[in-house]
């Protein structure tokens, strides 16, 4: 991709819809299932990724002229792991309860394909502002996916939302079990495809 042309709003929309990390590209799936058995954890994970993605994009776009192309991947990894360490330590300090449940997955943000991919294809070729908005867009897309998945899983699996009881019926325990995560993501992906196919068909007619 060459230098980006188009408004910042387009970049954000691209990240949320056209190139949604989870539903469209199907990468960085591990946390999408691991931490989404309740809404709060899903939301916090999404915010952590949003933060790391944006900061990495900003850092890379500012440093791009000083990075030799041959060693760019290790440099990107260093930048990413630096920001992940910061996120990890702040999470441990400010949200210790949630951190106990999802600490490992916060640390593993460092191995996210989506973050490295955006640094490589976008931030290393674009100026400061577009890179920042691209990071925000991709991060929001991820946050959106996580919130949707965890919304359904917590509502169906426990009958609560953010720990507050909503439905007073016998919950479907399977939804908060590991297996339920796979089902939820599979069905939501199929729903995304279905909406997409109908929308495209309508436009084609």
């Amino acid at each position, binding site marked *: 991709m060459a230098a980006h042309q188009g408004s910042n709003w387009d970049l954000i929309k691209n990240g949320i819809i056209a190139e949604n990390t989870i539903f469209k590209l199907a990468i960085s799936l*591990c946390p999408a299932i691991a931490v989404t058995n309740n809404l709060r954890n899903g939301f916090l994970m999404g915010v952590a990724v949003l933060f790391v993605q944006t900061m990495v994009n900003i850092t890379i776009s500012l440093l791009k002229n000083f990075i030799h192309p041959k060693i760019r991947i290790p440099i990107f990894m260093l930048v990413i792991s630096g920001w992940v360490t910061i996120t990890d330590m702040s999470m441990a300090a400010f949200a210790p309860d949630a951190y106990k449940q999802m600490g490992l997955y916060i640390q593993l943000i460092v*191995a996210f394909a989506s973050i490295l991919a955006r640094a490589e294809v976008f931030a290393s070729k674009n100026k400061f502002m577009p890179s920042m908005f691209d990071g925000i867009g991709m991060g929001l897309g991820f946050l959106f996916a996580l919130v949707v998945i965890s919304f359904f899983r917590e509502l169906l699996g426990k009958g609560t939302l953010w720990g507050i009881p909503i439905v007073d019926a016998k919950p479907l325990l399977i939804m908060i079990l590991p297996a339920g995560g796979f089902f939820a993501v599979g069905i939501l*992906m199929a729903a995304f495809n279905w909406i997409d196919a109908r929308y495209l068909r309508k436009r084609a007619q």
Partner: protein
Amino acid sequence: MGSEFTRMFELFISASLINNFVFTRFLGLCIFFGVSKKMETAAGMSVTFTAVMMISAALSWVIFNHVMVPLEITFLKIVVFIGIVAGFVQASDTIMRKVAPGLYYKLGIYLALISTNCIILAVPLINAGEHYSFLEGIAFGFGSGIGFAIALVLMASIREKLEIADVPAPFKGMPIAFVVTGLIALAFAGFSGLITL
């Protein structure tokens, strides 16, 4: 010595079956869905993964306990572990190309994919978090590798059949793979309680 061996065996079973990386810890899913389309690639990937996991568990244990703990820089573990894994993978890539070109031709492309994979990085992180001893760490790495291999081979054999199955259009491809994985995960839930550590 006997009890240590028992403990290693327990760790191995726990890592490969009960806390299977794919089905209960949800790690390595990108690779799991990416390469499980054909049996041959799945088998190649499993071998490479198991080897890399064991060796990186050993390497990172030595560096964590003999360099980072004495220097009190354990907060840098993410940076250091990713450096160790990437460096080691790069080195074995180069050595394999020189020494065993035939093997490199078969497994080389998987090696390149491994370096920044979450499942490889998770092994040293969990080892450090749980304060495993050197041998326990290796047993854990080996068990995790075998667990991942079981998952990949199971999934590949199912997906080869799925290719010719009549699946509703929106479910084609990834979504149906997810639903199938969910069913296998349900079966694997039956292993919980086999051993209590």
